[in-house]
């Protein structure tokens, strides 16, 4: 979902400026995926807090386990922060384009147009987007790395 949102973002900001209709629906798709990421991430965190999450990987030294924990915390942080930031970017944008979750439900306006906030939030949203993609790819790469070394990580992720 993160990669899908990222891909749509790359397309929607590059689409022919005058193709308003296409641009509008690409932005809506991006926003809906982002909100789904937020919901999925909250659900996952909820399960973790209830103790239903995956336990520590067997056969991994404590130092590496701690490092993995740090990486996962960063991933969760970004997964939560990105959709919230994205919502605020849309909220403070000069053009009052509504956010339609799944193309149907209109989200309420929280702050309203604010040029300075919009600029700052957009930049942050973009920088963190790249960070999240790099981290997610690293997360996947580490899973494959451990899998090759015989640890039961990749299988339980899928």
């Amino acid at each position, binding site marked *: 979902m993160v990669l899908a949102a990222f891909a749509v973002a790359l397309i929607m900001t590059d689409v022919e400026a005058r193709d308003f209709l296409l641009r509008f629906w690409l932005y809506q798709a991006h926003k809906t995926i982002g909100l789904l990421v937020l919901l999925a991430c909250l659900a996952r965190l909820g399960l973790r807090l209830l103790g239903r999450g995956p336990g520590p990987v067997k056969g991994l030294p404590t130092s590496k386990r701690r490092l993995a924990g740090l990486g996962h915390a960063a991933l969760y942080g970004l997964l939560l922060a990105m959709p919230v930031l994205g919502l605020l970017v849309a909220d403070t944008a000069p053009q009052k384009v509504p956010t*339609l979750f799944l193309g149907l439900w209109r989200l309420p306006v929280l702050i309203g147009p604010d040029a300075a906030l919009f600029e700052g939030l957009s930049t942050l949203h973009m920088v963190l987007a790249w960070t999240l993609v790099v981290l997610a790819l690293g997360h996947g790469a580490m899973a494959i790395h451990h899998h090759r070394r015989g640890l039961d990580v990749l299988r339980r992720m899928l």
Partner: protein
Amino acid sequence: MMTFRETWQKFLPIIPLAGAILALPASDADAADAYRIRPGSTTIAFSVDHLGLFQTEGDFTAFDGSLILDLDDPSRSRVDVRVETGSVEVESDEAMAMLRSDDYFDSGDFPEMRFKADHVTSLGDGKVEIDGDLTIRGVTRRQTLQAELTDRRFDPAAGGEVANFIVTGKVDRVGFGMVADRGFVSDDVDLRIISYIRLVGDDVAAR
């Protein structure tokens, strides 16, 4: 001896005054009062709809015109306003450039649009219907607008009775050849013009 520049500067302030005098109604025997329609006391705003989901609002910042208001006999009232199409303003710079382009106002070829009313009908209850010629992009079409005088009150700061002259109406942009982006920008453009005026009595004066 005064240089040309000094002479020019000296007489410059007289020009708007002369303009104001010329804007007075020809016949001042009746109760018609003339007002200048210009930025500062008037806003000319519009909005278009997108997919029935949201609207884009904008306004014009450069225009000049006259309003002759006859409260006793509304049918004798007149409006004539010229608007600089290049002065159109919306939130996004991108949209602003687009509105000035050939697809919309084509400000390069048609720097001005104009509404000249020749027929005012009273609808009662302080409301009137204004019919006139609206010219946009060189195309002139008949246009009907609704107007009313609201919030009549005594304003100590203005030293007299003031009111808002509010004009609303729908303009069909397609009729003027503005056919771009019909899938996303509504044909109908909602107009809302608000003019703050200081009502004058029988003594005719330009505001």
